[in-house]
């Protein structure tokens, strides 16, 4: 660690196992170790200064969804809220990467689902919560309901020396970011040095992961071209309801587990059917989970830790058995 950092490989994967958490190295805002210590001292609470932080990503809660792959409805989401509330210290902020709600053709019913989402997310002790829409939130009405509840569908902010960018690749109805938003992104990033750590959060993958399952963004290449000059780009997304880690150029892309039901590993055949993994009542929260991202600018690291909700330290088997016994999920 005493060795000077190679700025070109400013954020690189040093431990790639997703289950164990991937460790990424970064150096915020090209400062020296002394500068960062000063930053830590000065910016202990304002969120702007480089320093240690932890954030949580929750994805695809699909509030309002009812169906066989998840007869538990919002139970996993509620369990995740309890798990996050138990973290000590608490994370600085929560990122929700889309499909907060499950859509309804009836706008009044969909509005109720937004309210139900907020009732549950409102129980989080962390009040700084950032959202991007998924297609189930915003594709039928172009994002109207989402905006009413959460504001703009794309925006950016700085936290602890990391620049966060929220991108909307759903509300046009198609898997697309669009020229206007890409122009905005270019402008937004222009003030940053190439070494600035950037976290992009969005719903769909920004690359062709499985286009036949709509796991792609049609102009994702253009977005990645805008991000390409930056050495330390991490993209956090949801949509695919399973873990995935991919490297595109210098950027790292992480899909999060959902909090409703999981999709399987996609088979190679283009025509393979996309259907959720069946519900397993002996392990009701299997393949569902939360993600914690921790950064430490003194140690120049950013690590992504994915934890399944079935994991003992998070939920405890007793709680699960309790839910099974009450049978209120059937």
């Amino acid at each position, binding site marked *: 660690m005493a060795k000077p950092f190679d700025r070109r490989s400013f954020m690189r994967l040093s431990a790639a196992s997703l289950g164990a958490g991937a460790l990424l190295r970064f150096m915020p805002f090209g400062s020296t170790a002394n500068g960062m210590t000063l930053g830590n001292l000065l910016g202990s609470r304002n969120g702007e200064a480089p320093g240690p932080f932890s954030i949580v990503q929750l994805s695809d809660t699909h509030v309002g969804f009812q169906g066989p792959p998840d007869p538990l409805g919002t139970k996993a989401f509620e369990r995740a809220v309890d798990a996050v509330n138990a973290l000590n210290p608490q994370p600085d902020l929560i990122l929700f990467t889309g499909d907060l709600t499950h859509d309804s053709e009836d706008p009044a019913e969909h509005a109720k689902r937004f309210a139900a989402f907020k009732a549950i997310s409102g129980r989080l002790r962390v009040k700084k919560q950032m959202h991007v829409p998924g297609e189930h939130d915003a594709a039928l009405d172009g994002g109207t309901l989402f905006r009413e509840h959460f504001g703009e569908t794309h925006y950016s902010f700085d936290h602890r020396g990391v620049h966060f960018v929220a991108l909307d690749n759903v509300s046009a109805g198609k898997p697309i970011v669009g020229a206007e938003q890409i122009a905005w992104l270019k402008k937004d990033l222009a003030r940053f040095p190439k070494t600035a750590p950037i976290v992009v959060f969005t719903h769909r993958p920004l690359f062709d992961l499985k*286009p036949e399952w709509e796991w792609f963004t049609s102009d994702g290449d253009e977005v990645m071209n805008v991000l390409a000059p930056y050495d330390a780009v991490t993209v956090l997304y949801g949509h695919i309801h399973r873990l995935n880690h991919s490297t595109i150029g210098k950027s790292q892309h992480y899909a999060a587990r959902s909090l409703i039901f999981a999709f399987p590993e996609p088979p190679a055949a*283009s025509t393979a059917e996309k259907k959720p993994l069946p519900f397993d009542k002996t392990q009701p929260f299997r393949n569902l989970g939360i993600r914690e991202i921790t950064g430490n600018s003194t140690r120049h690291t950013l690590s992504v830790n994915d934890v399944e909700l079935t994991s003992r330290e998070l939920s405890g088997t007793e709680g699960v058995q309790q839910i099974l016994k009450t049978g209120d999920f059937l």
Partner: protein
Amino acid sequence: MNRFNKSLIPSLLTLLLAAASVVAQPETPARVIEISAKKFEFTPNVVTLKKDEPVTIHFTSTDRAHGLLVKEFKIDLDADVGKPADVTVTPHEAGSFAAICDHYCGSGHGNMKMTFVVE
């Protein structure tokens, strides 16, 4: 077609002759394939294409906006009621390829798809 109609040949024969004349011409316009979309299906559901033969896809919708996406052939169309869309493509690879609706259209959207078979 008009010249055949005027000569009062039975319609089946008309079609055969028309088809024959199309095959005989060396520089024919691409074959047109009509695909119609509604929630949550495509009609027809399977379309067979010939490898290296250009085809024009004429895509229509009868209820709302839908997409037709086949990444492999660069088909990426959007149609709405009264707003059809066309593209001419030439598949160069044999096999079965999934086409999906990539314009979100409601609860059954995730399973709205069809198959292109290239022989």
